[in-house]
């Protein structure tokens, strides 16, 4: 069927992009694919806003005495960089863009379970983002993205309320998206698509959605309490008035630790899709990878205390959290081993998506391993509050999640837009990003180990060489991120027309034309084989049914 459809000239074939024109058809759409593009545009804006703050910080840190801004402004920069990147870029990125676009197609449905709720989720995101941007331009907030009390409740004179309100509202966007995905995956799978025939991206999105639904409400109420305390000063979290600041941290991290898994799990799902396609092999240990996603979703809720080891928390509770934090590394490790085993003896090709995926495996592993030093109580006492932590989470979030996001965008770009991007430029950008990233953040591991604290606008002179190295890397990384922005926009107009399945990938989404029609499938597909039914070229398996 796809061959017959591909014959029709793309300019005349009706797809979801040209089915309707006009701003109303976009702003009032209930088509999950258009909503995915709305998200793509908005989170890209927030990414570059947050990125600009990072650039300013790295420029400032070239000089030990601070080269650029007043220390109060520096505090605002790192706060807003963190808040914007986490809440308004990373958390929505893969679920809201790739998840929204692909989940209905991967289950063989015409749309998500609740299309209008999906559009509402985007509008909620936009309102939250506007509040955060308003906070930024009207003075900024300087509490750290973690809003630790009592500074945020009682002493900060910055735009805490506006930012907190923006984050609070934005949380509901994630909750509703997660709700939508869970119901879709449970109730709208095509005939023959059993749970264990689903692509692993769906398992990852499902696990992510569970975390979103269970965790986000707690941070919502916590931020609400911070707002209340700022208004009434009754002592909810202020020790001078009888409150317990550590209670705030318990409630905050109850969500914010699982949140980091919301940010990485979908990326892991993307990697499973890319690795299998570009090594032409089934995934090694499908059920282990699927169950490890669920295990991460559950165990992630049991480890939040490891952010609080040096706060004065009880040692007994700290011991429990430490053991559980070691435990949570195991499912992630299982995934890494399985990806490596998938690559082994595969027929590997190195297009841009694969470069991002391979980079992910290496960098995520480094980031994850460094987490073990932080899970261990004795070493965490020294490393907490230093650049070691900064490097650790950037290796996972940037070296991991952002690379997975970019890999996924490259992988599915032909499907989403019907155009190919220039592969040489894409590979070049991937290489520049990889080099820039490592140059930026590897020195930060050393800095942290040597004792340089984080969130400080100045530092001792002996750390300058490593800081300059890091800032140099940041400029390279920045260029690396700008290149895809340029060629993706270029490709939408001038890129070669993409076929339905340019990567010869398996999966229901590749059975539709590029770009797909609004209703995705003219007839509900019937699934007769498992995912990743790849085989050597020319073999019966390639294109054959099990």
């Amino acid at each position: 069927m796809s061959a017959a459809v591909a014959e029709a000239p793309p300019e005349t074939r009706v797809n979801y992009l040209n089915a309707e024109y006009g701003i109303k058809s976009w702003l009032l759409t209930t088509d999950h694919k258009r909503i995915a593009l709305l998200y793509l545009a908005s989170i890209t804006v927030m990414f570059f806003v947050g990125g600009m703050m990072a650039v300013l910080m790295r420029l400032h840190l070239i000089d030990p005495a601070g080269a650029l801004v007043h220390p109060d402004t520096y505090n605002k920069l790192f706060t807003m960089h963190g808040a914007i990147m986490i809440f308004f870029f990373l958390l929505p990125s893969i679920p809201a863009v790739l998840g929204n676009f692909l989940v209905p197609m991967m289950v063989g449905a015409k749309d998500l379970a609740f299309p209008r709720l999906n559009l509402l989720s985007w509008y909620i995101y936009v309102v939250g983002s506007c509040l955060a941007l308003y906070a930024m331009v009207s003075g900024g907030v300087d509490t750290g993205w973690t809003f630790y009390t009592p500074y945020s409740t009682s002493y900060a004179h910055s735009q805490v309320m506006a930012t907190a309100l923006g984050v609070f509202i934005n949380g509901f966007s994630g909750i509703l998206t997660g709700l939508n995905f869970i119901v879709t995956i449970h109730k709208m799978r095509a005939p023959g698509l059993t749970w264990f025939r689903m692509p692993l991206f769906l398992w990852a999105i499902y696990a992510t959605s569970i975390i979103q639904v269970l965790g986000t409400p707690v941070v919502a109420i916590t931020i609400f309490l911070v707002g209340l305390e700022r208004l009434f000063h009754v002592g909810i979290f202020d020790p001078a008035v009888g409150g317990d600041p550590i209670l705030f941290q318990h409630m905050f991290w109850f969500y914010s630790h699982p949140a980091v898994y919301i940010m990485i799990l979908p990326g892991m799902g993307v990697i499973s899709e890319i690795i299998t396609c570009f090594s032409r092999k089934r995934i090694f240990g499908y059920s282990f990878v699927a169950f490890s996603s669920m295990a991460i979703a559950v165990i992630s809720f049991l480890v939040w205390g490891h952010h609080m080891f040096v706060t004065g928390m009880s040692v007994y509770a700290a011991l429990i959290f430490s053991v559980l934090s070691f435990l949570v590394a195991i499912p992630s490790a299982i995934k890494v081993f399985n990806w490596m085993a998938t690559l082994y003896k595969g027929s590997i090709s190195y297009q841009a998506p694969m470069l991002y995926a391979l980079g992910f495996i290496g960098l995520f592993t480094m980031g994850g391993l460094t987490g073990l030093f932080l899970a261990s109580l004795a070493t965490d006492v020294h490393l907490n509050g230093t650049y070691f932590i900064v490097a650790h989470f950037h290796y996972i979030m940037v070296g991991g999640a952002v690379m997975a996001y970019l890999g996924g965008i490259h992988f599915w770009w032909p499907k989403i837009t019907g155009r190919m991007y220039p592969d040489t430029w894409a590979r070049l950008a991937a290489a520049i990003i990889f080099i820039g990233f490592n140059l930026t953040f590897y020195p930060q591991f050393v800095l942290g180990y040597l004792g340089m604290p984080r969130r400080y606008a100045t530092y001792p002179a002996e750390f300058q060489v490593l800081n300059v190295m890091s800032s140099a890397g940041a400029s390279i990384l920045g260029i690396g991120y700008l290149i895809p922005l340029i060629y993706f926009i270029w490709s939408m107009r001038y890129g070669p027309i993409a076929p339905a399945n340019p990567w010869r990938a398996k999966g229901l989404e590749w059975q539709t034309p590029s770009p797909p029609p609004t209703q995705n499938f003219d007839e509900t597909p019937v699934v007769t084989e498992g995912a990743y039914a790849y085989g050597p070229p020319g073999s019966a398996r390639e294109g054959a049914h099990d």
Partner: protein
Amino acid sequence: MSVHVVPVRTYVTIFLLLMVFTATTVWVATIDLGPFNTLVALTIAVIKMLLVILFFMHVRSSSALTKTFILAGFFWLLLLMAFTLTDEGSRNLPPPPDGWGSATVAPAAPAKP
């Protein structure tokens, strides 16, 4: 979606049971049971909640999936409370500032090894 129609009599019975339990919880509150007052009150509240969930919300005839989701919700809340309490309960809480009255006695500091 529940297919079978629950008779009016069942709904009214559950309503009367809920009223009885409400009266009970008020009555028990007039008796001094010390720390058990809270336990009894919460137990009665849980029973009332179960009556509403099973009968008014039709969970008795709902799918296993629905029941799993509901159980997961309560279990996760339990996780939040339990893990937080292991810390708050085993720390040496500082004495409350002036005017805050007596707190519950903080547990004794663990003996140094």
